[in-house]
């Protein structure tokens, strides 16, 4: 019997495991790194142990420290979550050696499946179809995929479409894999374009009962990282399902698997499927399986670890569940990770968190659609760029797929997020995409996506800016230190409207408004001089306060929620969410950034420097590499010239906007010799 369990993880998965522990009456122990000292998972656990440091290596990958923490806190079991040490057999052995219960598969099974190259051999031996492995030296047919043997989450993975790109891709994948997993082994396999990513959740007890649960479809990916997952797959019929589930169960049995795991397949458009890898852990997307089968996978993991037996068959699946991963990243900027404080996060109509809502579940249960939220952050959480950028998972269940998609899209669209940039609009867009709606999404869906189309409409930007300006006006009056009771913007001689300007998603927006005896009137932004009475198309202000504004547009009232942090403003309404930046009316003169400066686009650390001071560089040539959020970002020379200054060294931590290096125009050579 487990009485006290440490979760060797952070964020939403730590909270997810804690929830099942609490339901079982098990005391919870969290570990937290220094940046996570105020994180919700650390605050929520019954006990929490600090892991000094910030980097993953110092903290959540520090097996020794974590086992010591478990012992110090009086834990008798360890759950690894996903990521970090979840698939590290060495960690599992260390936990077991310390006399603790390991809530996961036996280290031997983990080991067998840990390296993709080995796992493919075992799968083939078990009769599961696999893709041929290619020798990087003799690849002739493209495209191919370069993969890190120890990889996961898209890291160390590169698609190569032409021979000339192969060497650089292998080198870069090797470096990323080495940095992320400590193992630089990579291999190649044919890249199946248009294939779907289908996986099967398996669960095995110590007595040999193996469940293979309804397949999950994780085809909507960006850069090989899953974005939207669902079960069942719209592309899998009963016959294919039977074959997939049988193959997964066979492999689990073949390797003597115990506890929860996931067998991933690629399903080609001809219906053939190929084993990809066996993930020996709980998956991020496990909630969709829980929703359709009406089970608690973590509770089952705990029961299996305690030596309890699974029933012979799992509860039958019913309905459809879809999960969307909300990431702190900006799709329009190449999915650049974002960070910083979360000022507001509110998903409307959430029915449950980290589990199923109470009520009848499973076959015959006629329940209404529900929305589940598994979130690692709360208002006030500082999203660190040290770790994975996932903020939360939002899961919708409904009797049918289209109902589930509608519920999820509505929940996401109505979500108020103020803080880091997120992929929310992309998620909503995918859920509305006809290709997705028809169940035809494959792994290439986001490859050719028009991210510019995700920007809010011009009119939504303008009206949202009007709401933001009026809210800011209310805030200005509320915070006034003198003459606070005099009406806002009062003039005995009226000369011009108040002007508030924003930087918006589609450019600068000027909002002009007049304070009147009864409130505020939005002036026509285009009119010069501004019109005394607004034309019919201009929004009229029905009510305003610092946090919420009601505008009437063409006879329809809209409610705007406004969140403000310094100059940053988030406006949420039925017109969509618009992120604005309040522009300073009297900006300080720009500090002169020397032309030719290489500026850090985000916070991160310098991992590679490709040129030294005095070197000639060409425009576009990589000068240094910045690692942020486990992704490599090349910083290239803005122009051809001489690298005049290099202001950072390897390992330097830099902030967004820092000048890293300066390239100056090459001195014209006096000999004038041409080459």
């Amino acid at each position: 019997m487990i009485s006290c369990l440490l979760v060797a993880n952070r964020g939403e998965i730590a909270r997810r495991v804690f929830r099942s522990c609490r339901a079982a009456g098990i005391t919870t122990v969290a570990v937290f790194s220094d940046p996570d000292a105020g994180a919700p998972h650390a605050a929520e656990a019954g006990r929490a142990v600090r892991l000094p440091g910030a980097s993953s290596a110092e903290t959540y990958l520090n097996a020794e420290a974590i086992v010591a923490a478990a012992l110090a806190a009086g834990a008798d079991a360890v759950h690894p979550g996903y990521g970090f040490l979840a698939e590290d057999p060495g960690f599992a052995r260390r936990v077991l050696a310390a006399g603790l219960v390991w809530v996961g598969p036996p280290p031997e099974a983990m080991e067998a499946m840990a390296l993709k190259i080995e796992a493919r051999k075992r799968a083939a031996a078990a009769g599961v179809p696999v893709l041929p492995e290619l020798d990087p030296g003799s690849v002739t047919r493209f495209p191919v995929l370069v993969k890190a043997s120890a990889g996961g989450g898209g890291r160390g993975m590169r698609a190569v479409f032409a021979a000339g790109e192969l060497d650089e891709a292998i080198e870069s994948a090797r470096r990323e894999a080495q940095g992320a997993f400590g193992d630089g082994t990579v291999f190649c396999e044919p890249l199946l374009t248009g294939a779907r990513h289908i996986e099967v959740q398996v669960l095995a007890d110590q007595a040999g009962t193996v469940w293979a649960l309804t397949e999950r479809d994780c085809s909507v990916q960006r850069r090989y990282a899953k974005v939207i997952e669902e079960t069942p797959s719209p592309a899998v019929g009963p016959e294919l399902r039977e074959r997939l589930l049988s193959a997964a169960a066979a492999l689990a049995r073949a390797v003597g698997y115990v506890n929860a795991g996931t067998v991933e397949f690629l399903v080609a458009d001809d219906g053939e499927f190929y084993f990809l890898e066996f993930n020996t852990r709980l998956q991020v997307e496990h909630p969709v399986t829980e929703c359709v089968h009406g089970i608690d996978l973590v509770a089952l993991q705990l029961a299996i670890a305690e030596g309890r037996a699974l029933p012979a068959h799992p509860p039958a699946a019913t309905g459809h569940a879809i999960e969307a991963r909300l990431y702190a990243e900006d799709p329009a900027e190449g999915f650049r990770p974002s960070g910083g404080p979360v000022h507001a996060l509110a998903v409307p109509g959430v029915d449950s968190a980290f589990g199923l809502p109470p009520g009848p579940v499973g076959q015959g249960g006629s329940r209404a659609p529900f929305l589940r939220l598994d979130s690692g952050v709360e208002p006030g959480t500082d999203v660190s760029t040290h770790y994975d950028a996932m903020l939360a998972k939002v899961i919708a269940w409904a009797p049918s797929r289209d109902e589930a998609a509608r519920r999820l899209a509505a929940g996401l669209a109505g979500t108020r997020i103020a803080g880091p940039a997120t992929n929310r609009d992309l998620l909503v867009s995918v859920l509305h995409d006809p290709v997705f709606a028809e169940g035809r999404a494959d792994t290439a869906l986001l490859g050719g996506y028009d991210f510019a189309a995700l920007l809010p409409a011009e009119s939504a930007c303008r009206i949202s800016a009007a709401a933001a300006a009026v809210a800011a006006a209310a805030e200005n009056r509320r915070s006034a230190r003198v003459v606070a009771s005099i009406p806002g913007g009062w003039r005995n001689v009226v000369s011009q409207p108040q002007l508030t300007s924003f930087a918006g998603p589609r450019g600068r927006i000027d909002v002009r408004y007049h304070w009147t005896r009864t409130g505020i009137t939005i002036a026509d932004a285009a009119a010069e001089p501004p019109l005394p009475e607004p034309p019919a198309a201009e929004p009229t202000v029905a009510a305003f306060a610092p946090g919420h504004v009601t505008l009437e547009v063409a006879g329809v009232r809209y409610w705007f929620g406004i969140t403000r942090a310094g100059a940053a403003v988030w406006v949420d309404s039925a017109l969509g969410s618009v992120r604005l930046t309040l522009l300073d009316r009297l900006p300080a003169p720009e500090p002169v950034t020397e032309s030719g400066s290489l500026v850090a686009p985000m916070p991160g650390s310098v991992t590679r420097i490709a040129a030294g001071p005095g070197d000639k560089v060409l425009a576009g040539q990589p000068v240094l590499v910045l690692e942020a959020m486990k992704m490599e970002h090349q910083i290239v020379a803005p122009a051809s010239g001489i690298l005049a200054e290099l202001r950072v060294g390897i390992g330097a931590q830099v902030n967004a906007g820092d000048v890293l290096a300066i390239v100056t125009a090459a001195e014209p050579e006096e000999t004038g010799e041409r080459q």
Partner: protein
Amino acid sequence: MVPVVTVLASTLDTGSAQYASRRAAMLAKLSELDAEQAKALAGGGPKYVQRHRDRGKLTVRERVELLIDPDSPFLELSALAGHGTGFPVGGSGVNGIGVISGTECMISASDPTVRGGSTNPWSLRKSLRSMQIAIENRLPLVNLVESGGADLPTQKEIFIPGGQIFRDLTRMSAAGIPTIALVFGNSTAGGAYVPGMSDYVVMIDGRSKVFLAGPPLVKMATGEESDDESLGGASMHARQSGLADFLATDEHDALRIGRSIVARLNWRKPGPGPACTPAEPANDPEELLGIVPEDLKVPFDPREVIARIVDGSDLDEFKPLYGTSLVTGWAALHGYPIGILANARGVLFSEESQKAAQFIQLANQIGVPLLFLQNTTGYMVGASYEQAGIIKHGAMMINAVANSRVPHLTVVMGASYGAGNYGMCGRAYDPRFLFSWPSAKSAVMGPAQLAGVLSIVGRQAATARGEPYDEEADAAMRAMVEEQIEAESQAFFLSGRLYDDGVIDPRDTRSALGMCLSAIDGAPGPTGRPDGAGAGPAAGPGLAGASRYGIFRM
């Protein structure tokens, strides 16, 4: 303050024909006011404004709007300066009380589109008046300078009295009231002493030009060859002469620096602050438009006005049954306690005079500012009143007003005739602020009365000489005099001559007075003492009243 509730019951019938016609008349006057203000707003007119913009410059009102806190109120003063004088309406500048970085300041900004921002006799009076307000109320002064100096044809009206500008600048500084000059362009010759006498000076690179004499004059005087930049450029003053404390890159930067200077003044008002939470009037201030009769001969109940300007429409009347032609009582306005004296039936009798004198003394005893709401035709005349001592009683009231030391505010709602103007704290009695409503009139007496008096005197003279009286000439004279006096009694005319601080929309009365009371809170001490010192023992912290008056003739 312990809440005492004595709410006025309004009897104004907003559905009546009388209300409608009074409102229509007031709206007509307000559109005249708009037209006059539009002249001031237009500055030097479209051509010069465009030329100014083409130079990449902000207009004076844009500068002021950017200088003050977003969405904060601004009380503009003397907007009609120069009206009816032949000079452009507005006094070639914008003056007023605004909030900069959370601090109420007097802003005095020249408008370079109006004849190069040159100072005419009315702009000088406007500047001096705003400085007087700044001194009396201890408001930091921010000058937005861009002026070609004195209007030379009228230099005789400007040169000698204009020295007071520089005298007051340094006296303000000495009294601990900071003075700030943001120099947007020319500030030459005498004008150079505005930055010269200011505590903080901001100049704009490539724009500000501050020298005693320009290149031609220097050439004439000494033969030296020079240029604008070496004589008075911003960069030179920031780096060499030390006249500029800050070098701004552009106008926005200068305004930004100005705001940051004020933010660092560590300015705190010594006043007691509001004594209670402000409450809106129970009656709609919009209805103020329908109270003043079209004909000022018709009296109106000032309680209907008070009910629409004071907190909660709450007036605690003092001596309500005595001297009923003058309403006196206690109220609060934007949370500040005030005493109010308001004419009810125009005429002041002996009882009203004695009631006023007593009430003014009471306000001084407890240190509460006074608000005078004028609608008076003066002190009662006639044998029985003279015999009952109307002069000595009127003198008693004027004595009390003149020697009262609590801050006074005056609003001319309607008529302000004769010595009633004095007793009700007219301009000569130094109220801290004085505003007029658009249909108000001030004169020694009504136009018809004045013409009639002249007619009677002329007729008597003719009779004495034994000559026949020319009735036709008399009628023409009366019409002409009536017309002239009528015109010269008008609020706009008097405001143009700086006899008030502005003509306001009646609906703005509460806000304007609230701004004034908040400003007064910066110097609640006896009026006329910029250091705010000398609070009497009875006054407690903050406001101080008078304890000495002229001899009251009993």
